[in-house]
């Protein structure tokens, strides 16, 4: 229930934004041009007033501040992706403090601290470092033990390519469409990296859309799963996964790195770092480095990335009809991706013998909103049969979805950069 309220609030808010701002928000400069106050003190007070936020605030700023507070509220109250929504939400507040240009405050002003920190977003440096940490914290065993489930992670990339076509249809320029499409990959760092290369002016909108919907996966996916699977399918129990040896776990990042990057070299910064991090984790002799990569390093980058991505939503840049369209496309992309995964799982079942049949619900985990979409599957599985634990099975499409979206992003970069 609570979750539905949340969704409706988000959508209502977004609608309000578009209505209120009317596509372009104009500054409500309340400062008169000439002040004929004779006293120097009044003049000084006037100068001070001119520089305050109260004097320069626009309705756009206020809307965005409300959005920022709402993000923080979601994170604290409902525990929706707090490590991302708290920094992003605070960033939105900071980015929408009204200011006069020329004092090196705004994120788009050269020489400001936010601008320096934003450099890592703009040049696509932070996302690979996040992937390094993710690699160092991810266990790919489930995927190694049941490789064919990787196909579901590939199938869910329908979200990416479907959104690409949709974005073109909605009138976006081709590079913009390519950047927007990666929202369908349900990977924040991948989406930010692609945007930074293809459409830097959309980084803010794309990132906010991606993270918003990822936070809402537990709300978005269950109805689609129920719509697209039969009761009988939802009851399928799967064979427990095979145990995986240490050698296999060491070979996985090495083979994965070479194979995927030979196919899509443009995915090198993302997949190279992901597999490097995983190798450090699994090889057993660099635990110290892996530990740093998955704790302090990823924390520092998460703080800086979240804060500056949030701040990049400065109302004057962010509140455009484009942002609204991107939010609409984002919602569609998550639905398409989920459907793609579910559908492919059902198709796979047509070709599998009875004892090997897979529970098609795990296809939904292919969107790679790790681990939430896998948890959703586990949840739905238990609802239908309290003894059917699907979590481990769902982790395979879940992590392969990450690799899949990075390859898809690499393809977009190859064709459009």
């Amino acid at each position, binding site marked *: 229930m609570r979750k539905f309220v949340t969704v409706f609030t988000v959508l209502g808010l977004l609608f309000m934004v578009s209505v209120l701002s009317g596509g372009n928000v104009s500054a409500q400069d309340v400062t008169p041009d000439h002040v004929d106050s004779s006293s120097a003190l009044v003049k000084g007070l006037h100068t001070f007033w001119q520089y305050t936020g109260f004097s320069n605030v626009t309705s756009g700023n206020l809307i965005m501040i409300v959005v920022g507070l709402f993000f923080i509220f979601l994170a604290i109250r409902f525990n929706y992706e707090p490590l991302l929504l708290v920094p992003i939400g605070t960033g939105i507040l900071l980015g929408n403090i009204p200011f006069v240009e020329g004092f090196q405050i705004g994120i788009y002003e050269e020489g400001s601290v936010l601008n320096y920190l934003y450099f890592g977003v703009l040049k696509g440096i932070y996302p690979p470092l996040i992937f390094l940490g993710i690699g160092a914290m991810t266990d790919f065993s489930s995927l190694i033990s049941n490789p064919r489930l990787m196909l579901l*992670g590939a199938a869910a990339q329908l979200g990416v*390519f479907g959104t*690409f076509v949709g974005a073109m249809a909605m*009138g976006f320029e081709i590079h913009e469409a390519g950047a927007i499409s990666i929202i369908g990959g349900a990977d924040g760092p991948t989406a930010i990296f692609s945007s930074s290369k293809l459409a830097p002016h959309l980084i803010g909108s794309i990132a906010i859309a991606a993270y918003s919907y990822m936070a809402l996966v537990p709300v978005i996916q269950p109805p689609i799963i129920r719509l697209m699977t039969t009761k009988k399918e939802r009851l399928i129990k799967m064979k427990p*996964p*095979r145990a995986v040896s240490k050698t296999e776990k060491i070979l996985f990042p090495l083979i994965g790195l070479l194979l995927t990057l030979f196919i899509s070299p443009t995915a090198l910064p993302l997949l190279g770092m992901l597999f490097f991090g995983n190798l450090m984790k699994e090889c057993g002799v660099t635990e110290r480095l892996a530990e740093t990569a998955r704790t302090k390093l990823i924390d520092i980058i998460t703080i800086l990335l979240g804060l500056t991505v949030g701040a990049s939503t400065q109302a004057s840049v962010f509140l455009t009809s484009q942002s609204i369209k991107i939010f609409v496309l984002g919602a569609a992309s998550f639905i398409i991706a989920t459907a793609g995964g579910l559908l492919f799982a059902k198709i796979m079942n047509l070709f599998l013998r009875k004892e090997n049949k897979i529970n098609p619900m795990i296809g939904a985990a292919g969107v790679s909103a790790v681990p939430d979409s896998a948890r959703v599957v586990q949840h739905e599985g238990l609802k239908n049969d309290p003894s059917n634990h699907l979590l481990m099975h769902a982790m395979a499409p879940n992590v392969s979805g990450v690799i899949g979206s990075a390859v898809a992003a690499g393809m977009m970069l190859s064709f459009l950069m």
Partner: protein
Amino acid sequence: MIHFLDVVNWSRIWVITIVGYSVVFTALVLLIFVFRLMPKLLNLHLKRRLKKEGKIVEADAGEEQYIAGEVNAAIALALSLYFNEMHDEESNIITIKRVERRYSPWSSKIYNLNNILPPRR
């Protein structure tokens, strides 16, 4: 934004879409291929080594080991407990007790307290 639908080179769009989606599949299918093959290769290697070392290769050495269903369930349960959101509901608990710990805008001394005091909770 000034591009109109009829101006867009749609054949290019479809090519990117189809080639792109296919390549994603290809990449993962290749990975699947390798990782279906690997256990056999590693096993072969193991068997050979064991033979060399004069040890008897047991019949079931080649069989894959599966994780029992109950273990699976137990793990999943433990995980779902961890994954559960645990909200601290508002409670007028006295929180002033560590008022001056850890604070220091410019003072370096207090940094060190973190090393002396037990970790937070």
